[in-house]
């Protein structure tokens, strides 16, 4: 990956994180879980997926399903930056005049399916992948799950069925931020060793740093990993990434900050990213 591209993606991710922070007040949102997958969503929508505001009804577009629906601020932040919806629409958060709430809704352009109840979209994505294959189309069908979400048996059930049907156009991406809602995954329902579990269920697995754009590019551009197996990409991430004051904190899953706290968090966000960004970007902030 060129340094220019990396720079552009970093700047975009910073803007998405600003949206996430700004949504973390007046009722709040799932801040920690959104920050962990911001880089992943930015990479996928800005650089990898064949989906953009102009092709949302094209049956041959790539599909992304957000099964861990509570990180919707990262998704909508990305959509706002990439022109799927006007940025002002984010100010409708939790208002009854729109459908912008704590989980994805299809009323927002770009959302392929609603989520919120964990463990559902691996099977919905499987259905889409089966249909794409039936029609001889070769687009990517990607479903992002949380790591805590992997407690749900239906994630594994869907993979078992996908493997049985040799669905190679389905990719399960795990936002491995190491936290469930309230507690570290390994302290509640340990998942490790995780990659061998997926392999045992019939997938080909890669495990990468989910905040490293070059690593994301290397993994995603290698899809499908096998001609007759589903693919899994485990993205090791940090809950709260970008805001050291809330990173890796069990009590920063859902956040509802005061306006003073938001101001200070935005400041913190910009100071963290300063080393990677141009002075021009920072003066704009």
């Amino acid at each position, binding site marked *: 990956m060129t340094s220019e591209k990396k720079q552009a993606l970093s700047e975009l991710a910073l803007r998405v994180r600003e949206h996430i922070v700004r949504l973390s007040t007046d009722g709040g949102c799932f801040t920690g879980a959104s920050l962990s997958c911001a880089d992943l969503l930015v990479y996928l929508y800005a650089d990898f997926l064949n989906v953009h505001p102009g092709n949302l009804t094209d049956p041959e577009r790539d599909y992304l399903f957000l099964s861990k629906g509570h990180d919707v601020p990262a998704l909508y932040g990305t959509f706002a930056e990439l022109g799927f919806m006007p940025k002002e629409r984010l100010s409708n958060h939790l208002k009854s005049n729109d459908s912008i709430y704590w989980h994805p809704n299809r009323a927002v352009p770009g959302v392929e*399916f*609603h989520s919120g*109840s964990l463990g559902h979209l691996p*099977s919905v*994505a499987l*259905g889409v992948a089966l249909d794409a294959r*039936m029609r001889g189309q070769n687009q990517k069908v990607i479903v992002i799950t949380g790591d805590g979400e992997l407690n749900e048996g*239906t994630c594994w059930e869907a993979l078992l069925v996908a493997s049985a049907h040799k669905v190679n156009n389905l990719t399960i991406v795990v936002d491995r931020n190491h936290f469930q809602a309230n507690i570290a995954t390994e302290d509640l329902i340990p998942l490790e060793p995780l990659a061998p579990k997926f392999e045992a269920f019939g997938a080909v697995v890669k495990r990468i740093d989910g905040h490293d754009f070059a690593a994301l590019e290397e993994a995603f551009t290698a899809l499908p990993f096998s001609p007759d197996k589903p693919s899994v990409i485990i993205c090791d991430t940090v809950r709260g990434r970008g805001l050291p004051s809330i990173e890796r904190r069990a009590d920063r899953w859902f956040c509802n900050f005061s306006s003073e706290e938001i101001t200070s968090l935005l400041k913190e966000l910009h100071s963290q990213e300063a080393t990677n960004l141009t002075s021009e970007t920072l003066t704009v902030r």
Partner: protein
Amino acid sequence: MNYEQLIHETALADERLLVMTAENRALIRNLPGPLGARFIDTGITEQTMIGAAAGLALRGRVPVVHALATFLTLRAFEFIRTDVGIGNLPVKISAFVPGFLSDGNGPTHQAIEDVSLMRGIPGMTVFAPADEQDMLAMLPAIWASPSPAYVRVNTRPATYQHEPFVMGKAEIVSEGTDITILTYGMLFEQALIAKDLLTEAGYSVGLVNLRSLKPLDTEAVLNVVRGGSLVVTLEDHFQTGGLYSILAELLLENELTAKVLPLALKERWYKPGLLSEVLEYEGFTGQHIARRIGERLGDGVHSFGAKTKVVENEFAE
């Protein structure tokens, strides 16, 4: 024409139609060959099957999904509600061995809260054909509709020549001034026998095959209520949430009251066994239905003593 032939014929004419099963192949054994990739067996995974059906429907398909009624409506309930229901997707649920039709399987397999659960989902439609002929008359319209649908599959041979099906309309077999039996599904066969027994005893007996529980033919049901006869709600379902509840809701909405006899399973699972044993033990043969209605009317004259012969079910998975 049987169920399998109908689905095969419909799939040939409409490429949107897909057949899915959670390894319940009893009625669709011969379809994997002719349907190829459009026959999808997900194994014993009701939840994944429903989720995948929602995904297929998102892409414009009309999946007809097969599994035992109880596992679909209970194990996969949240997937039906959340993926099919919220998505308002045209997934067509063919629910096998509902109600008394699970005969020898026991309470684990008794889908006797399915109507209650399915009708509670916004947008879901709910159907219960009286027999195979009735079902074959109903399915083309159900599959052609854009709505999600739940069908209590019933392949028992017909004992009555049914009228063509009109979506949302009940079949009025007879009108009566003393008694009207409202029923759905496999008990229609026993209700016909009960009607004849009661008619022979001198009563004027109405019989309505509801066919569709949602949408309900409210006009037909309100006509029955306004006729003033004893209204019998006959169902192989818990008394709570099924037809008795549907009638109660309708009466309240219309500020009406009626003399109602519920014949349903009140706070109990039924005794498993051969279908004839089940119906005899639980009091749902034509004879027992007539006797229970006679008792409600204070009939001390007629005994309705002749035991009803019940054609056994042919169970297979």
